[in-house]
Every structure is written in structure tokens, then in C-alpha cells.
């Protein structure tokens, strides 16, 4: 049973690592994950039982209407040679209320 559960947690943690944009080569990332397997497993079960991270998603679950949208965008410059595929500090999907 433990092995199956551990595989689950590794799969989940693998997604996390991939989205974090490791880029260091898959081998080293996987080794790191395996070395953290115990704490990852404990943290995952803690959330599954206690659900301390759960809340109502008011930002997406509240009905709302949007009207008369006005956009006013201006080109201010360009950045080259960026290492990350995502903009640094992008926060348009972040919610401030907890």
C-alpha cells in the first residue's frame, strides 16, 4: 500500500517540480524528489485529512457580470534573453484574500 501511495505523491510532486521550471535535467530533479519522499508524503496526508488549505473560492464561485470593458495598453519596451517562459511576478491568477 505504501508503495502505491508513495508513487502518487511522487507523481504530484513531479508536476510541481515541472511547473517550477527545473531545467537542471530531469535526473537530478527526480533524485531530489526521492530524497524528499518522506516529508512530501507526510505533508500530503496532512492536507488530505485536515484540509487546512481549503477555502471558498469566492473569486471564481461568485456570480458576476462584466460590462463596458475598456483597454488602454501601451508598449513601453522589450526584454531579451529571458530564462523563464513565464513573466516574473505575474499575479493575475493570484488571490489576496485568505
Amino acid at each position, binding site marked *: 500500500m*505504501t*508503495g502505491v501511495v*508513495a508513487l502518487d*505523491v511522487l507523481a504530484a510532486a513531479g508536476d510541481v517540480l515541472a511547473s517550477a521550471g527545473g*531545467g537542471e535535467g530531469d*535526473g537530478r530533479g*527526480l*533524485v531530489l*524528489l*526521492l*530524497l524528499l*519522499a*518522506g*516529508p512530501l*508524503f507526510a505533508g500530503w*496526508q*496532512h492536507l*488530505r*485529512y*485536515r*484540509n*487546512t488549505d*481549503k*477555502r*471558498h473560492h*469566492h*473569486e*471564481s*464561485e*461568485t*456570480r*458576476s*457580470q*462584466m*460590462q*463596458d*470593458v*475598456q*483597454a*488602454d*495598453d501601451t*508598449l513601453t*519596451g*522589450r*526584454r*531579451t*534573453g*529571458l*530564462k523563464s*517562459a*513565464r*513573466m*516574473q*511576478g*505575474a*499575479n*493575475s491568477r493570484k488571490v*489576496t*484574500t*485568505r
Partner: protein
Amino acid sequence: MSDVHAPQAGAEGTPDPGTGATPAPGFPGVEPPDGPRVVSTEGDRGDGIVRCERCGASDASLNVATGMLRCNFCRHEWRTENALASFDLDGAIGDLRGVVVGSGTAAVTADPAVTLKCTACGAEVVIEAGVQARCHWCRNTLSLTEQVPNGAVPDMVLPFSVTKADAVTRVAEFVGKRKFFAHRQFKAEFSPENVLGVYLPYMVVDVNTRARLTGEGEHQTRSYTVQVRNAKGETHSERRYDADVYDVRRTFDLHVDDLTVESSTERLDRDTSRTSNNVINTILPFDVENSVRYDPRYLQGFTSERRDVDVDGLRGAVHQQVRDIARWRADETIGFYDRGVRWDTTDLDVQGERWVSAYLPVWLYSYLQTRKDGSTLLHYVAVNGRTGETMGSVPLNWPRLLAVSAVVEAVGAVAAAVLWVLS
């Protein structure tokens, strides 16, 4: 409170654009020129005894299966009015100006107890507001139908539609999936049939606002690989990106419908080291538009909690949630910025808001855990009394979890070593 009902011009109780300053007649309390427009949600049944229209008995309660009130003597059933429609609190949100509140949002006072005079025999009966009491002398049931402005009686109530049997099943199922690492004593004492039906106090808010967001966005123009040399002189390829940078501004009207927030200090406490109120928060939203005019008979057989936070105490949190909604909606308009947008400001220009207080139905299973150091942690499994959505907190058997985690760690370490040698 949806946009489908347009307010009829001139109808009584229609939001009054521009002034927002006419308090309902006879409503005591705050009446400054710029104060909220108060819509009275008080019933016209001030005598304290509500009788069955068929047999005249004063005892009725909710039949969860039908959502109707049922006379406890002759079994006659009837439906009560939809709250928002009958109080004209469902007009178009875009037409909202100023602050409109239901009279049930009145400031809460310290002493919720009210003395009623029994109209059947004249005896005086003290009644905890929001609840019913039986006259000790003539045994008639007295209901607090007269809305004393102490904030204890809400504007509306959403009756339970999930039965107790259904709630018990859902609680048992939720905990059943979380038995292996559950605390021993919790497991030993677990009895889902102890789930309690509770009406919890909430404020339901409509907001008409203009939202303005400013920030910076990046649009990718090129992606390519480069050869990078490290300190040892070895080269490998890495990905690089070029992007155009824009100042991004979005301005739009936002009509927020039935935003729902807890209105008791206790339930607003989200410190997960003390309580698990966050799981009660998680089972939102409710179909609040189906709420009926407050009638204490819906509470019979259930418990209820009192509101102790006023509109002014919640406005800041509500506006913050509206800002979150504005950001979420603005996301639909920034598809061009494929690398993302960083918002720096989110400003609201609130044109109008409408506040209604409500009792919403929650099935609660609770378990008080006492830790070795004497501190306590209150665990809940909560079931939405309308949708059945279930969330909970199950106390952990830490020794067992740590033991299994150690095994997982050992297996992981061996696998890591094998992988290291192979590569």
C-alpha cells in the same frame, strides 16, 4: 438577487438612484442623510403567534423533503414567500446606487433576549431572539415575528433541503476515506448520526462597481536555444525568450451577485491551529436566491447561531473579495499577454451595494480534540444543507503517519541511490 428582475419604476421599495437616503418609516436607529436606505423585511404578523390557516394550531416546522412548512397537528403544508422578490431586493445590480440594507442587518446589540406578551393568555415570556418559546401557562408557541432591531433576526432564511439521513451518509463517507491515519480516539468515538443541523448567520451582498486595474504585461516575440558554457568549460543548450513589455490598463463595470460572507466573529476566525472554520467556509456557495422570508418555524428542530458583526465591520472584507473577483474577471481580457500580467493596483469605484442578512443551513459534525499540552482544536465535518457539498477536518494519528512516512523516505532514498548510480 439576479439581474433578470428589472425594478419597476415607482414601485415601493425599488432602489432609489441618486439619493439612497430614505430610511424606511418606523425603523429606529441610524438615519443620517447619507445613511443606508433600509428596506423593512419585517412581517405584518406582530402578535407573536402564527397560526395554521387550516386548524389554527401555533405549532409548525419545516418538512425538509418538500421545503414547506408543515402544521404539527393537522399536517397541512404551505410555502412561504421568496424573500428577495417580495422585498424588492432583487432589482438589477447595475441600477444600484448608494447603500441599501435589509432591516435585518441592523446593528447587533449585546442582549438578544426579548420579552413577548403572549396574546393568548397575556403572560410575559422571555424569548432568545431568533428562536421560539412556548408560553409556560397556555402552551401556545410564541414566535419572534416582530423584528426587534437588535440584529438578531435575519432578513431571510434558506431552509434545509438535505435530509439528516443524507448528511449522516456524507459525513460517514468523508471520514471513511480518512480512517487509516485518523486519531485513535476520534475513530473510537466517531458516530456520524450526531451531526447537527445549524443555521449559520451570513451577509449576502450585491455590489455595483467600476473596477480599474493597472499593471504590466509581457507578450512573447521570440523563443530560441543558446549554448551555455559552465565553469568546467562544458557546454549545454538552454532556452531563451524575448518579450515586448506593455503598460496594461483595464476599466470595466462589475456587477457582483450574492457574494456571501460569514457574519459571526467565531466563524470568521480561520486560525487552523484552533478551529477548522475554514472547512465550513469551503462548502459555500448556497443558492441564496431561493431564501424565504424569515420565519422562526423553519428553525424548529435545528439550532442557530447569532450574528455579531455588522455591515460596517464586514465592508472592508467584502470589498477585498470584490477586488479579487475583478482580477479574476480581468483575466479574460489579457489573453494577448501570453507570458503573464503583473497587476500593481486594483481600484474600485463602488456605485451601490445591497446587504441582506441570512440564515443558511449547514449540517455540522464536530469533534473537540484536546492535545497533550491542554490546548484544544475543534474539528468539523460540514455538509452544505442545500447542495450536499462536504468538507471536513479529521485529527491525525501522528505517530502512525510519521512511521509510515519514514518507510516512504527509506524507499525513496534507495530509489534515489539506484538512480544516481545508473546515471
